[in-house]
């Protein structure tokens, strides 16, 4: 399947769809317009003032120059790009749900009920005792979880300074630990791509606040020694943090809570198919075991006394807040709708099909796939080809390429996660794109992509001389 992307250009100067500012710039004399005293206002404001038809065309055109799940395969490893069921948009658009967060609990029973129900769903799915919905993304969930762990240690008078993280972990894990004020202890991967238990034993000690782990890990391998790993960390007085990015592979077959994890985040835009929105919003609810519940952010929601609905409450030793209000509400509503749509069997089937797809796809690739057995994703290696070049060439074959050059344990990695939404023929197309690109000539790879709205972009040059606004361009 080949895809030519729509694009727009002016013949004269080869500018793609003009900037709004190139279409119109209107200046308003603010001081004349404003009832405020002049010394409190700006002088003027200059922005585009396009008409509605112009706006409609502008964004319609921009949209057509944007690849999305609804365009075709988008197998970004670790990112879990699933189809986003349309009806969840309608559920979230309910005007009755569009209320202000400072409403009294009495007058916001509907939203409180939905929050409560979602907390319950997530608790069940993760095997966790208490859940907060507040963190607005996965990384925010990590930060929340680590802050909760820190509060727990401090509450118990433990002064611990380190967080242990496998080398294969996502960048957010490292950055989160640092943001929370911890030193990062990086754990090299074992030969089998998993945590090396001996190395872990050596790394863990009195200073260990927590081990952050995702399971299956970022190349889709289940940490088989998880029981032992948990024991090691717990014995040292540390906590086990579960990065929920890969929970989609476990649904209905394993729960972090049952594996010894004490705190976890759920990544709802991955596991529960809420849209990625070109980079967000997502949501990253956090679940914890009983002992940590008192530290969760405030408020959480519980059932009020018999028959009187739901109420927000502040956990006893709450860390306070991680978002100005309750997080990304619209995303949480879509999460609820998705989980309710699938139910137990649907969730388990989603995991099964995701794993089936990854294994089937890998089977068809001419590229090597080190390590196994993997679950919902795998890191193929481009070997002596440049993974990024192979990826650019794949764009010409009508698919989005996988995540490239990460994790580093696989050289020239192409981290691939087709998710459950692709069918056999789509996977066949995808494998063809992989194989054709992988086998293509150096010249073809260098010249790729050719069928896209822009040809290969020099990102290094762009970063050397950053131009971050149309004002910066005007100044050229």
């Amino acid at each position, binding site marked *: 399947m080949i895809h030519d992307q729509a694009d727009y250009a002016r013949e004269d100067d*080869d500018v*793609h769809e003009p900037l709004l500012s190139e279409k119109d710039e209107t200046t*308003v004399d603010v001081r004349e*317009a*404003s*009832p*405020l005293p002049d010394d409190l*206002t700006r002088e003027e404001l200059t*922005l585009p003032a396009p008409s509605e038809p112009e706006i409609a065309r502008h964004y*319609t055109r*921009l949209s057509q120059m*944007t690849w*999305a799940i609804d365009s075709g395969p*988008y197998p970004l490893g670790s990112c879990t790009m699933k*189809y986003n069921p349309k*009806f969840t948009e*309608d559920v979230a*658009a309910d005007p009755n749900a569009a209320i*202000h967060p*400072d*409403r009294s609990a009495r007058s*916001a*029973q*509907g939203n409180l009920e939905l929050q409560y*129900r979602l907390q319950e769903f997530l608790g069940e799915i993760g095997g966790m005792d208490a859940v907060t919905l507040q963190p*607005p*993304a996965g*990384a925010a969930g990590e930060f929340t979880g680590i802050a909760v762990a820190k509060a727990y240690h401090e509450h118990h008078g433990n002064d611990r300074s380190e967080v242990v993280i496998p080398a294969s972990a996502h960048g*957010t894990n490292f950055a989160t630990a640092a*943001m*929370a004020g911890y030193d990062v202890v990086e754990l090299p991967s074992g030969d089998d791509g998993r945590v090396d238990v001996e190395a872990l034993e050596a790394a863990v000690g009195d200073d260990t606040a927590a081990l952050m782990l995702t399971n299956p890990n970022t190349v889709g391998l289940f940490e*088989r020694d998880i029981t032992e790993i948990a024991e090691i960390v717990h014995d040292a007085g540390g906590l086990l943090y579960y990065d929920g990015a890969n929970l989609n592979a476990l649904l209905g077959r394993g*729960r972090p809570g049952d594996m010894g994890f004490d705190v976890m985040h759920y990544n709802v835009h991955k596991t529960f198919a809420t*849209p*990625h*929105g*070109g*980079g967000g919003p*997502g949501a990253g609810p956090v679940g914890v075991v009983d002992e940590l519940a008192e530290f969760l952010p405030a408020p959480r929601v519980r059932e009020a006394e018999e028959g009187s609905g739901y109420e927000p409450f502040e956990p006893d030793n709450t860390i306070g*807040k991680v978002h*100005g209000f309750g997080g990304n509400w619209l995303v949480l509503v879509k999460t609820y709708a998705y989980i309710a*749509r699938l*139910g137990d*069997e649907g*969730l388990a089937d989603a995991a*099964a*099909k995701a794993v089936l797809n990854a*294994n089937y796809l890998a089977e068809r690739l001419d590229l090597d796939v080190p390590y196994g057995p993997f*679950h919902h994703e795998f890191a193929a290696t481009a070997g002596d080809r440049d993974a990024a070049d192979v990826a650019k060439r794949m*764009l010409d074959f009508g698919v989005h390429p996988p*995540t490239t050059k990460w994790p580093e344990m696989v050289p020239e990695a192409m981290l691939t996660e087709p998710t*459950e939404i692709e069918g*056999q023929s789509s996977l066949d197309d995808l494998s063809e794109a992989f194989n054709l690109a992988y086998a293509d000539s150096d010249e073809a790879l260098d010249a790729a992509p050719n069928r896209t709205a*822009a*040809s290969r972009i*020099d990102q290094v040059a*762009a*970063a050397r001389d950053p131009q*971050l*606004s149309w004002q910066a361009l005007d100044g050229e």
Partner: protein
Amino acid sequence: MSGTGGTPYAPHTDGETAAMLSAIGVDDEEALFDIPDAVAFDGEFGIEPRSEREIRAECSRIFARNDDLTEFLGRGHYGHYVPSVVDHLADRAEFLTSYTQYQPEVSQGFLQALFEYQSMLVELTGLPVANCSMYDAATALGEAATLADRVRSTSGDVVLVPDHLREAKRAVLSNYCAGADLTVESYPMVDGNADVDALADRAGDDVVMVYAENPTVRGCIEERLAAIGDLAADADALFALGSDPVSLSVLEEPASVGADVVVGEAGALGLPTAYGMGLGIFACSDEFLRQVPGRLVGVGEDAAGDRAFTLTLQTREQHIRKERATSNICTNQAWVALRAAIHAATLGPDGLVDLANDCVREAAALADRIDESSGATAPVHDRHHVREFAVRVDQPAAAIAEDLEAEGFAVHAIDEHLLQVCVTDLNAGRTDDLVAAFEEVI
């Protein structure tokens, strides 16, 4: 289609599943899972699958349990009318169902939209750098503090914030500060504005950042921002200013009062009242370009020499720099930024300025009327206001708020005898009724 009980969002027929399993060389899907028995889950979540129609009905029943109130609520989360075209364009699947633009060649459209959003923020703040979103105003403020910590070589560890700050925002800031060993302290207010003299006394070597808001959370316009900026500069502290794009369209340009960083809430554009969901602004001066948290879209060239957009300066980010990243943020609020940009485009500068001016006029007019007719004092602070203002009542504020709720109106009770009322284009048509309700309950 998959059999009963399967996910409706996987396309596999039974035949295809079988063919795929046999290509892999296993008998069933279970064989693909490598989970030790000891930790395998064989219980049930107890979640019954439902049809989409059932879920729509169920959720609509649930949401109908929210009371039908006219809200005069603000304090950081503002509702303005969002033109229908914003929904229709932002809901286009290419926007909604794409992700971070790791392959810019197939993502030119979204990148351009984000670049335009950044440019609008640059115009509104007067600062040359604006990222393409943080989660919300509170987390953006937290990021500003950690930026201050990174860029300020002072030995200081104090972040000064106004006494009139939303408690929740302060709590978020505290969590961000905790990791950087920073301490949050308040400076006092006089009559709704920063007490600049007190601030001058406090500002010193130990201060890494001074934060002010314009308007304040009580809706007051800060009248001496430049003085605060100078104070911060003298103390070698970062001056961070909080605002929103509607207010910024008329208020003093942050750059002109010496702001180093602007944070705030851009969800006032593009988002309906969304139970607190937001869109964090983060703009700053060139000096901090390589310290900015979050994503930046820049302009470059493609192989054909044509202008092209791309994410840039990614070496700041966690996926490259790990624990030395400027932030842990990954997934952000890109789609909300898109909405804000479309909304701003529909308004144009005229519409934006009109909206802001209406928020000034309506607030003044409503405060006057409440003051005149009900015996309450409004506005409490003798300042210019944007959208909202405090009201002093003799009775307990909470009881009055409850009585107003019984009349169908939601207002804030912010202190023992203080209420707060927020008026925008969305509720301006109901001010007569609110005034009448005030008369009724006071």
